[in-house]
Each structure stands twice: as C-alpha cells, then as structure tokens.
C-alpha cells in the first residue's frame, strides 16, 4: 500500500521502480515533477528508485497561473 496524490492505493504487481509507476499511470512525463515522501526525485533517478510499502508519492506539474 502506498499513498499516491493523497490517496491510499495498492501497487500493481510487477511495479518495482518509480519509472514503472510513472509508466503505468500514463501521465505526460514532460514537465512532470515526482515527489517521494516530500522530496523531489530527479528524473535520472526514477529507474533506480524502488517503490516500497508506505511511501507517499506525489505527481506535480507546472500549470498556468498568475
């Protein structure tokens, strides 16, 4: 069980890394910012970052605003 964007959810079988997780959510990756337990994980570390039980993952992006 992880907390994704503020909601608890199970992790699908086969998802090991942050890269896997990003891929299955099918969000646009360009401009995507990923926070793991409130820390930004740089894109180059997505492959090597393991998804573990209890983690809080946030997907953030830049949107229009004044």
């Amino acid at each position, binding site marked *: 069980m992880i907390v994704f*964007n503020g909601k608890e959810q199970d992790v699908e079988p086969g998802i090991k890394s942050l890269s896997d997780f990003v891929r299955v959510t099918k969000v646009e990756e*360009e401009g995507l*910012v990923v926070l793991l337990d409130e820390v930004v994980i740089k894109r180059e570390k997505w492959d090597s970052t393991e998804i573990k039980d209890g983690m809080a993952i946030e997907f953030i*992006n830049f*949107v*229009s605003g*004044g």
Partner: protein
Amino acid sequence: MSDVLKLGGVEFTNRLFTGTGKFSSKAMIPKMLEASGSQMITVALRRVDVKSASENILKYIPKSVVLLPNTSGARNAVEAVKIAMIAREAGCGNFIKIEIINDQKYLFPDNFETIKATEILAKEGFHVLPYMMPDLIATKRLEDAGAAAIMPLGAPIGTNRGLETRPMLEILIENSILPVVVDAGIGRPSQAADAMEMGAAAVLVNTAISAADNPVLMGEAFSMAVKAGRAAYLAKMAEEKRFAQASSPLEGYLWN
C-alpha cells in the same frame, strides 16, 4: 538610453511581467510573449490529475523568458517554502513569487506569513518577489527579510479595477529601497502607464491580457503603455497647477 531593471542578477529591459493564467488557448502564450516583449512570466504548481490529460505549461514558454513560479495554494509560510523548494528542485530557477492567501473572497495576501516565508527563502538563495497588501511596515520587514522586490496589489486579483490602492502605492514607491512591482488588479494599459508614471519599477499583468478578446494585441498594448509610463517618469513630469497658465504669450495680441 539604458534603463534596465536588475532583479536577482538578471537585467530586464522590459518592465512588463506577465502571467500564464486564464488564456483560452495556451498556444497564445508564446505569441503574447513575443508581441509584448515580456521577459518574466508566472507559473503555478499543482498536483497532477491522472484521470485527465494535463498540459505542461512550460512547453509554451520560450527558454529566454524568466520563469516566476508562484506559491499559490499556500496558506502559510511553511507551505509556501515547500512549494518554492519543489519549484527550484524541478529546475525553475531561483525566482519565486510568494503568494500566501487565506481569504478566499478577496484573495488578499497574508503579509505576516509572507514576511516569514521571505526570510526563509531569501536565506536559501531565492530571489523573492512577495505579493503583498500595500503596507509600509510590512515593506520594511520585507526589506530586512531579503526580498528582491515587493509586489503590492493595485486591486484584488482578477478584478481589472486598476490602482485602487494608489495612495499606499505612492508611499511604498517613495519610501522603499526595493523595486516596487505593482501586481494584481491592473485592467487597462492606461492603468499600467499610470503605475509606471508614479515610479513603479515594473507591473505584473495577467487577467487583463489573457482575458482580452485578443491577448496578443493586448500584450503589445500593455508593453507600449509600460514603456510610455516609464519614459514619462524618467522625463519628470511638469507640475500640476490649480489655475490655467497660458501657453501662448499674453502680450502682442493682434487686435489690441
């Protein structure tokens, strides 16, 4: 004549800052930036809704334009600091517009929390541009806290009502050592020119441009107004008089 505004080590030759909010089509943003020559633009950070397609706003902003992420959605200094850190980690640079709002009716900024956030972020190396209620004491606190400029509101966000806070803006311009960037409420190019004539260092305009029928043309109009207002300020305007003062000689009339 060289007239640049230096903020955070960056030289701005155009004193119109713009925002990315409320454009009917994001494709208009780069065209508006080109037409207006604006060199700084605001963006916001939000959680991605994975169930709906979200567009990356950054792809509409040319690399030459400085990004000014805002902390909208923050209700206190802690949240604003967190948003600023995320924006920087995400590669948005060191500029940050502090926007801390608890009042949802008028969207007035919380000066007290804004000062706290400014102090923390300035120490972390950010170039902090705090959106604030125009207040001299808060301005002095923001100077001490290390703000790069102050951004007092002209009128509530998105109202297009112009410089309703004019007397306070005049006091801040006269008394602050920081550049004063009038933010929020400016609805017409003439109001932007007015702010610049008063001695504002720049203006930040979003809704008045993005909600116009033709945002590209309106961006250009605002840019011209800002330049005109700045030139008028530098030229030092003639004194106002209570009574008429003839512009032609008062002697040698033809029929006397």
